[in-house]
């Protein structure tokens, strides 16, 4: 049954106005499609407007920009092209009636609408893991924030969360937040990392030395205590198997605990229409057009896999738009003998999952453990690439040429000692 609400009609509806969604909408418009972009925030840009540090755009714009700068460049282009978009608008549901008939139901301050579309590009980003998810027990008090929430409080709303800070997680986001807090005059008492090595890029790990911030590797925060507000957090050392070492506990006094323990692609709305999810990425299984297992539903950005560089996110948005164009023009992406890409040794995740062999592609992958002097190999086609260092924190992006892909029925990617 169709709801009796105003009906709109498009070629493509793009869900999410972060860099992935904006890049997708821009490309779709350039390709002559009738496109609508929807985002629930009051502004475009997704999480970029809250990332006021530099480090964005080196590949995409060949310039180092801040998050808001990167976002505003895309937004400017979007407006110049006259892409139709709505902010303060949340997609509630996607319905998949048939390959070329999707309905996107959304709500906005002017009410609920349904938009018919031939294809949907899903670019809703990710969410952060929170304290409960990582097993922290104790009091449920004020002063516990995810890194993104703290960043939003500080850089969108101008609120200083606290003054004595403990950060869980030494990935780039945690390290950047450590610097952000230090720059605002807070005392960052510790960065606590579960793994035996820091999770972030080397240049970000330097932050800790610059600001004299202790880093506890092979440690985890297990408990928070306090009355209204965090007063202290309990830290414990872990062994090689990440098991807690009894007797190694100690307390750190702090009024704020920042959780920076990774992101999870937001895909509930895709799951609801039966899109197949890859447990390794947490995002959908896709082909080299970034089409999901439901024909005509494309995905890009952090909803596809967690990216550390916005440049790749924007690239994925464009690719998804090109896929949508092909899908609409041909009434579907031609079904073919897809070449399946499989994870070999020391490869934790890998996207896309299926390759057509009719085009060059970028493979995005992450390793499971850090290694030095390694080779990335695809034995089926005899491909070898030397890599001085690999780290789980750094996503690898490698190009495969169409003719290479066509050589095999299946490709296995492994990262092994050279």
């Amino acid at each position: 049954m169709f709801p009796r609400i105003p009906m709109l009609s498009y070629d493509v509806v793009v869900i999410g106005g972060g860099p992935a969604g904006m890049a997708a909408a821009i490309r779709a418009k350039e390709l002559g499609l009738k496109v609508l972009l929807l985002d629930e925030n009051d502004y475009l840009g997704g999480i970029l407007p809250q990332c006021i540090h530099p480090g964005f755009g080196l590949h995409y714009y060949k310039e180092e920009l801040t998050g808001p700068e990167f976002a505003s460049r895309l937004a400017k282009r979007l407006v110049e092209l006259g892409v139709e978009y709505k902010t303060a608008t949340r997609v509630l549901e996607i319905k998949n009636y048939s390959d070329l008939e999707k309905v996107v139901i959304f709500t906005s301050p002017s009410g609920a609408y349904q938009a018919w579309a031939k294809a949907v590009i899903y670019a809703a980003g990710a969410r952060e893991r929170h304290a409960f998810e990582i097993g922290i027990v104790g009091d449920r008090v004020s002063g516990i924030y995810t890194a993104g929430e703290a960043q939003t409080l500080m850089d969108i709303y101008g609120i200083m969360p606290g003054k004595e800070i403990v950060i869980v997680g030494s990935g780039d986001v945690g390290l950047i937040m450590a610097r952000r807090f230090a720059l605002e005059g807070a005392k960052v008492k510790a960065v606590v990392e579960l793994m035996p090595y820091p999770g972030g890029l080397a240049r970000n790990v330097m932050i800790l030395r610059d600001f004299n911030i202790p880093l506890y590797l092979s440690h985890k925060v297990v408990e928070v205590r306090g009355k209204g507000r965090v007063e202290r957090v309990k830290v414990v050392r872990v062994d090689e198997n990440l098991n807690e070492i009894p007797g190694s506990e100690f307390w750190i006094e702090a009024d704020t605990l920042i959780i920076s323990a990774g992101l999870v692609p937001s895909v509930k709305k895709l799951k609801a229409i039966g899109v197949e999810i890859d447990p390794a990425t947490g995002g959908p299984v896709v082909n080299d057009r970034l089409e999901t297992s439901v024909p005509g539903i494309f995905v890009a950005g952090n909803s596809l896999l967690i990216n550390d560089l916005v440049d790749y996110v924007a690239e994925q948005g464009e690719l998804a738009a090109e896929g949508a164009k092909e899908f609409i023009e041909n009434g579907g992406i031609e079904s073919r003998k897809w070449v399946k890409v499989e994870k070999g040794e020391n490869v934790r995740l890998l996207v896309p999952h299926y390759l057509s062999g009719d085009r060059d592609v970028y493979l995005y992958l992450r390793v499971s453990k850090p290694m030095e002097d390694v080779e990335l190999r695809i034995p089926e086609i005899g491909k070898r690439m030397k890599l001085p260092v690999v780290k789980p924190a750094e996503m690898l992006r490698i190009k495969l040429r169409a003719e290479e892909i066509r050589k095999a029925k299946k490709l296995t990617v492994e990262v092994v000692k050279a």
Partner: protein
Amino acid sequence: MKTKVAIIGAGISGASIARVLSRYENLEVHLIEKAPDVGWGVSKANTALIHGGYDDDPEKYPTRAKLCIRGNRLWHQWVKELEIPHVWNGALIVATKDEDFDELERLLERGRKNGVPEMRIVDRDELFHLEPNLTREAIGALWVPIVGQIGPIPAVIAITENAVANGVKTHLETEVTGIKVENGEVKGVETNNGFIEADIVINAAGLYADKIARMAGIDYFEIHPRKGEYWIFDDDVPGPKRVLFPTPTPISKGIVVTTEISGHLMIGPNAQDLPPEEKENLATTKEGLEQVWEGAKKLWPQLPPRSKVIRTFAGLRPEPTGGDFIIKAEEEVWGFINVAGIRSPGLTSAPAIAYEVAEIIERDLGIELKEKEKWNPYRKEISHFFMMTPEQVNEAVKKNPAYGKIVCRCNSVSEGDILEAIERMKFIGVKTPSVDSVKFRTKATTGTCQGSFCRPKIVQLLAKEYGVEPWEVTLKGKGSEIGIGDVKVLLRGDA
């Protein structure tokens, strides 16, 4: 002349009493609560079950046995009048060993005595028909169809709103520090906000009922806390259709596996006795949570991975000396009524407790209660975007565009819902803006992301509506502020 009644504690007991007493012309009812909002004591963290009234032994715990089943019957009416979120899904007390059937027979028998005829023992086939994913070890169960679940804090809020609409005065953030007794009669209560005169003082102070009683010179009982811990999982994790109990042991009703009313699988509680001075110890513990996990697994083997946890929490049961509810007018202090030791099944019993108190006032204090000509039994539930059809959203948006704008993405809570919640907070006298007050009214921040997207937005709305700086907005009352000042406060050096 009106008889002035001071009720200490706006939990499910105090609020229910206030509602029932608001019906009488000749009473002036004051509801006093130390917390910033209602329902934040024991009533906040529990299993939320409307129990079946079969398990309390009428010989040992006559008051519990009587009030539980009467409360269950009354809730069927109250949830409708007050539009309280609820589900009547029934419970299964599961047997996994042959001996368990003896206990189930005993419960069946006891239930009949307590006035619960609608139960029966089901065999394995029927059991798996009712609950296909139960442990394969199950061999039968006691089926209690009258068991239900409600939102406990939404219930306290609904009841308080209705009581206030019927003339009850609330005093929030008002802590009772003393009770004035003259010539063996209560005269009122001393609080941090001044003296409140009263002819009748009703002690419904939950964990602190012993302390309040002592203020009136009554010290024959003590309350000690018994902790129970819980896990709640994301709403895409499948849970049971009914409330699942193991066969009880003499110590405990056991760890429950249930899908709570918002659709989340919930497991818990265990039971850990704490010393009387630990009435604020609501910390979850690794050991307690593991115990719950192991217990739940026995009934529900397919527990989700730990990464599907969205929250863990703990509650404290107020365990009284003797174990039974203490509900009586104290003879040595005229006008002082204890409603103490309201441990489980206190949520279930609350409406019955309230009528019991009204009876005590008439019977033992000799005050004839005159019904108001006009008393409004109804209260409308707050608007919930997630319950609206798109057509209804478009109706709501005509009144206020905020109803079309989502703030909490996980639970689809609109800005309109939140503004309405804030209005209702003010209506019952909430003075300190807190995210939790909004959360309990709207469900914002209780979803998959646990508020990391929407909390900053809710803070903005609260700050604006209460006219305070955003960092002064609290999570759960004074001392839990969201921030310490504007972002430059430390650099300026005036934090």
